[in-house]
């Protein structure tokens, strides 16, 4: 009998380690002036430096150092008074230089932490994830493997290399061993990557788009029998490219490793690849032949020695912590806990804040983004923020508040905007969506309804207010749902002598 997740964590204690790579959003590359713009023709953003041509000399991008220090400060790290680049030597064509310029034993930031909060059975609980190091390096080129059935490397006949990405500034953030999470390891892993992403976004140092690869996560995981006090052999799962995948990769590895251990097999220290479809991992290269990168200090670059005045200057520019911001907004908008976490998990905090800043009432702003817009996004399997802008939502809400749109009509307006029919105003004009607020037109419909249901009208006249529902319904139907129901009710009751 194979163990499921609950059974696995009842016997084994997971230990996590997370390595996150972040592409910085500088204009130029790490060591040369080539553009970092995404989507250019292959090999048009390359030069002698990033192609590793003989005699070319790199010079580090000052902005990239600044961004790296900001990241370190936001993660409560110490900034190294002396830091150096190193060459990581390996034979693989994704770096034309045959080495990657990275940092080895002298990283720019060390010893930080990030507190994350997760929901447990006993309510919210905080975990401290300790940061081992933050170091600077450069991204690799993109390979295209041609031939072979799967497009994977095995069986490929040759590879095609585009070095536009080679040399884009990359920061690697490595945690220390994260233990003591018990069965909440998947939630802690996800909460950490989420919080990290939010911090990086608030610092403005990266696009942090996991789906597009500007933020990538490797998940290290090992299991040990509960109470053994020892650490098991770890696997390293790469290719984990969404927050949900981080959680799923941990679950998948816990189950896989637990079942191996149950069967008396050993865990191999290896790199595994996350499979998005199944949530499982498949083996990659084995690390049994220990990697030998022969790191040595990069002779073409000089050490980075940030002075303390500069560090303090940067520290003073740190933005509000995302966790504090969430708490503040929750109070300002008086949002219940559950709805707040829905907003955060859906990544809607920024757009809701923006919508409210543009004048929308907080409750309405939240419910439109979490409700109708999220529903349309789910149907299309896209991000809600890609469907409509906060400005457009604010316009729709203001039209509801002024009585020019009913909720029902507003949904049609949003649907039209999402369908690409233009701005809310365009959709309203094209689809003819306007609340029938003209009293004359409403009265005609009301009189028609009364004529059609004289008995009902009589009952209302006699004081049976609930009976008016049938008449209001008839009027709404006659106006194609474009009338404001409250207004119809008011006019109808007044007409039948029941107005207040």
């Amino acid at each position, binding site marked *: 009998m194979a163990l499921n997740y609950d059974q696995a964590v009842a016997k084994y204690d997971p230990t996590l380690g997370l390595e996150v790579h972040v592409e910085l959003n500088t204009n*130029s590359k790490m060591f040369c002036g080539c553009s970092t713009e995404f989507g250019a023709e292959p090999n048009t953003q390359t030069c002698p430096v990033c192609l590793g041509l003989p005699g070319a000399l790199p010079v580090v991008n000052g902005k990239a150092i600044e961004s790296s220090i900001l990241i370190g400060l936001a993660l409560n790290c110490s900034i190294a008074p002396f830091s150096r680049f190193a060459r990581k030597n390996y034979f693989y064509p994704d770096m034309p230089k045959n080495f990657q310029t990275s940092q080895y034993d002298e990283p720019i930031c060390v010893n930080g932490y990030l507190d994350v909060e997760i929901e447990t059975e006993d309510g919210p609980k905080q975990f401290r994830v300790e940061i081992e190091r933050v170091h600077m390096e450069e991204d690799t080129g993109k390979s295209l493997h041609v031939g072979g059935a799967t497009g994977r*490397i095995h069986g490929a006949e040759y590879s095609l290399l585009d070095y536009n990405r080679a040399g884009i500034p990359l920061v690697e953030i490595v945690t220390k061993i994260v233990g003591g999470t018990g069965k909440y390891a998947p939630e802690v892993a996800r909460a950490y990557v989420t919080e990290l992403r939010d911090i990086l976004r608030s610092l403005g140092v990266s696009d942090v788009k996991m789906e597009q690869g500007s933020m990538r996560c490797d998940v290290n995981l090992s299991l040990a029998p509960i109470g053994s006090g020892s650490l098991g052999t770890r696997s390293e799962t790469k290719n984990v490219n969404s927050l949900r995948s981080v959680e799923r990769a941990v679950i998948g590895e816990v189950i896989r490793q637990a079942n191996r251990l149950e069967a008396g097999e050993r865990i191999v220290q290896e790199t595994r690849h996350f499979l998005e479809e199944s949530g499982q991992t498949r083996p990659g*290269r084995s690390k049994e032949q220990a990697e030998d990168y022969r790191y040595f200090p990069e002779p073409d670059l000089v050490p980075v*020695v940030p002075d303390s005045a500069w560090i303090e200057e940067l520290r003073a520019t740190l933005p509000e912590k995302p966790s504090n911001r969430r708490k503040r907004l929750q109070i300002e908008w008086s949002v219940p806990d559950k709805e707040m976490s829905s907003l955060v998990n859906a990544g809607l905090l920024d757009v809701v804040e923006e919508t409210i800043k543009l004048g929308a009432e907080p409750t309405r702003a939240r419910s439109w983004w979490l409700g109708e817009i999220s529903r349309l996004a789910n149907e299309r399997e896209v991000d809600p923020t890609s469907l409509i802008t906060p400005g457009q939502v604010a316009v729709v809400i203001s039209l509801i508040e002024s009585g020019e749109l009913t909720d029902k009509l507003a949904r049609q307006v949003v649907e039209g905007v999402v369908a690409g029919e233009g701005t809310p105003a365009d959709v309203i004009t094209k689809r003819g969506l306007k609340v029938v607020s003209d009293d004359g037109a409403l009265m005609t419909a009301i009189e028609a309804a009364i004529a059609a249901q004289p008995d009902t009208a009589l009952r209302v006249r006699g004081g049976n207010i609930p009976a008016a529902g049938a008449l209001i319904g008839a009027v709404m139907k006659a106006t194609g749902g474009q009338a404001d129901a409250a207004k119809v009710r008011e006019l109808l009751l007044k007409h039948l002598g029941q107005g207040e």
Partner: protein
Amino acid sequence: MAAISRDDVAHLAKLARIDMSNAELDHLAQEMSVILDAVARVQEVAGSDVPPTSHPIPVNNVVREDVVLPSLSQEDSLSGAPAQAEGRFKVPQILGEE
């Protein structure tokens, strides 16, 4: 005597993707040991107050502004490549790695 074994040389050759005959390995193991011995003498001179040097000139914090400069054209980028296709460098298949 800074010993470098024949196995060390074979390992380095493998990492550097250099195919070496047995005779070459024997020869190089000896030769490299002599070189290492010579370099090791520097360590005898350097006292504990001399930090390891990675750069001949004591200079720090040389940085550039984050400004985009012109790159090579695709044609120029690929001009030194032994093979190319679809605007990309064409390299032999890579085995045994992901």
